[in-house]
């Protein structure tokens, strides 16, 4: 029992943080927006070189063979920096699913190996994820109704562009074509898709948590600088306490998020309820954080010039991805019905 990240886990996170600090500042993002771009090949390449495109792919399929515990921090950092490229979508969700179902199909295994080293990306459509980002440029588009999986190239799958609030999240809907491949329904497929869905919600929660912290940091920075009535506005309790409340909210999302990652990693049947908990809380928290950050910025917060709206818009999109409030509340209710509440014993107990 040790609820800390290992040194190796911390190192991956720090490396990514430092990389994105260099190549994914909001200044970089604004240049992309001005140029109408949503993807930067050189940044994707840099991520690939760190092995991040194949974190959850087993080593024998060409990935790093790490777990959701590593990836949850990666997703959180991608959130914090508003990474536009589909690292979480592909390496966190679609690709590990593909790796799980490719079996002995050598063509599929080849594709997995290529995606794992960053040669393109994959995306997954799902009833809980009807609008997926970067589907048009995907090497591989997967779609599941929960029981079966279809896959193919974007053209075959009939992806259609949908313009979203966030200028750096190109969303697409899908109308599956007839010509593309199809899996047979099986228990194994169903289980793999369910896990992919859990990963989707988990990493969406992680990204929202990262955004919440960034939004808070920006509000704090502004509140320290901006003076009114002869004092920094951050010295007024009206501002102070509102921001402190955001910090409290964030502090109580993180442990849930990390525990949910550990539960998914060990395939525990409590995992889904904790993923739901993380998703719900992260969603509330990022709403609180981004709205309050806008308000602390005053009129500036309503301008295009201040960066905060980029965080608000990304949060809007993510908080509506991978399931609805109803769905996640239902998953929490299932835990309540089945386990009762005093089960730290159960939560941390040996699942064997």
């Amino acid at each position, binding site marked *: 029992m040790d609820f800390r990240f290992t040194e190796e886990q911390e190192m991956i996170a720090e490396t990514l943080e430092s990389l994105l600090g260099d190549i994914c500042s909001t200044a970089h993002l604004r240049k992309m927006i001005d140029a109408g771009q949503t993807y930067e090949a050189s940044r994707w390449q840099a991520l690939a070189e760190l092995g991040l495109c194949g974190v959850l792919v087993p080593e024998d399929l060409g990935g790093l063979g790490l777990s959701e515990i590593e990836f949850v921090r990666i997703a959180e950092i991608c959130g914090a920096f508003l990474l536009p490229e589909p690292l979480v979508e592909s390496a966190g969700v679609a690709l590990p699913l593909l790796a799980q179902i490719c079996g002995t199909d050598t063509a599929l295994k080849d594709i997995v190996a290529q995606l794992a080293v960053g040669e393109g990306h994959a995306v997954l459509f799902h009833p809980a*994820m*009807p*609008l997926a980002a970067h589907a048009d440029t995907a090497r591989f588009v997967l779609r599941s109704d929960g029981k079966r999986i279809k896959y193919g190239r974007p053209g075959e799958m009939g992806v*259609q*562009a*949908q*313009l*979203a*609030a*966030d200028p750096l999240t190109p*969303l697409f*809907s899908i109308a599956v074509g007839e010509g593309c491949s199809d899996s047979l329904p099986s228990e194994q497929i169903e289980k793999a898709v369910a896990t992919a869905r859990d990963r989707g919600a988990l990493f969406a929660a992680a990204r929202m948590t990262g955004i919440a912290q960034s939004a808070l940091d920006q509000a704090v920075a502004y509140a320290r600088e901006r*003076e*009114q*009535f002869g004092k920094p*506005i951050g010295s*007024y309790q*009206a*501002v102070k306490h509102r921001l402190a409340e955001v910090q409290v909210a964030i502090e109580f999302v993180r442990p849930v998020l990390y525990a949910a990652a550990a539960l998914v990693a060990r395939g525990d049947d409590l995992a889904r309820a904790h993923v739901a908990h993380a998703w719900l809380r992260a969603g509330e928290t990022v*709403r609180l954080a981004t*709205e309050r950050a*806008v*308000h602390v910025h*005053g*009129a500036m*917060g*309503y*301008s*295009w*010039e201040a960066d905060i*709206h980029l965080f*608000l818009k990304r949060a*809007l*999109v993510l908080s*509506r*991805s991978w399931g*609805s*409030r*109803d769905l996640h*509340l239902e998953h929490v209710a299932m835990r309540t019905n089945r386990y009762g509440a005093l089960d730290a014993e159960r939560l941390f107990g040996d699942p064997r």
Partner: protein
Amino acid sequence: MDLIYTREQEDFRMEVRQWMQENVPAEALSSFDASREGFEAHRSWEARLNAGRWGMVTWPEAYGGRGLDLIRWLIFEEEYIRAGAPLRVNQNGIFLLGPTLMEYGSDAQKSRFLPTMASGEEIWAQAWSEPQAGSDLAAVRSTARRDGDDYLLKGHKIWSSRAVYADWAFGLFRTEPDEKRHKGLSLIFFPLDAPGVTVQPIAQIDGETGFAEIMLDDVRVPAFNRLGEEGQGWSICMTTAGFERGLMLRSPARYQMAAARLVALWKRLGDDAPQSAQEGVLQAVMDADAYALAIYRTASKLIAGGHIGAEASTNKIFWSTMDMRLHRTALDLLGPLGTLTEAAPAAEDGGAWLDGYYFALSGPIYAGSNEIQKNIIAERVLGLPRA
């Protein structure tokens, strides 16, 4: 207490309804903040309204109004919004400056400015804030130096709504340079095309340019353009702010209509509507009702000779909170579709809910931030001590 419309009030409603049915453009005008074209289309609409003497029904007939009371204004607004008539591009004029002019202006000023305001010939922008004077408005630095019968205006205004395409602006200027804070300020009007005025559009969160920076470099205006006495600017401005926060700018029909649209969306979604958002829908209906009732109550008091005081602040907190809540609920109802802009093929209601959410976000900021309003309520209504 009598909560029934009179026969005359009902007749008035029917008159408005009929005029609107015959005159409201079938197609929605394009945004007045997005292009000169949209702006001018709205100006034409103001002219048409004015031709029907609907520019501002509470104003005296001499200035283009009908001399009606506030209850009728509320009825007018209900019918206006019900008919889906365009947003008032001249709202800074008719709802803010207009009532202030009525209270503080000379007859000559009223005759000069009100009729062209009612007709939309002159569209107004506000010029309150400066880079260092936001919530702390009394920190304005822009000056008006007296020069014979004129003033020379100098300074830097910001977040001026409508300033990109408007004709005129009104703002606070320091007429006594040695005075500090609330003293020595005057309210002065200036034409936005006067020599020395530079207007720099500011892009908003939604990409439109609803506000602008205004640089004033020795802009010459006649002293006639000063409202009230020299040095009286702060107290006049507080009156205007009361209008802004309170009754006029935010007619209840707008929120009732928004709540009605939300209910319609909820019904349309049927079983697809998330259960957990239902209470938000009911809340929106209750909020809109509560606000409407509160405004009718305030209107009744004003008609009987009462004054609107700190109620303006409680109103402002309520409507801004309600508007945020309502749009959050709408986005929750829509799920992933709620994040789509009007350009997206799958967008519901043409992306209006997302636009509405952005606009609602500005509610707690403009017209005096909610933090400032809470200070006002705490100190002036509750009598708590100043910090």
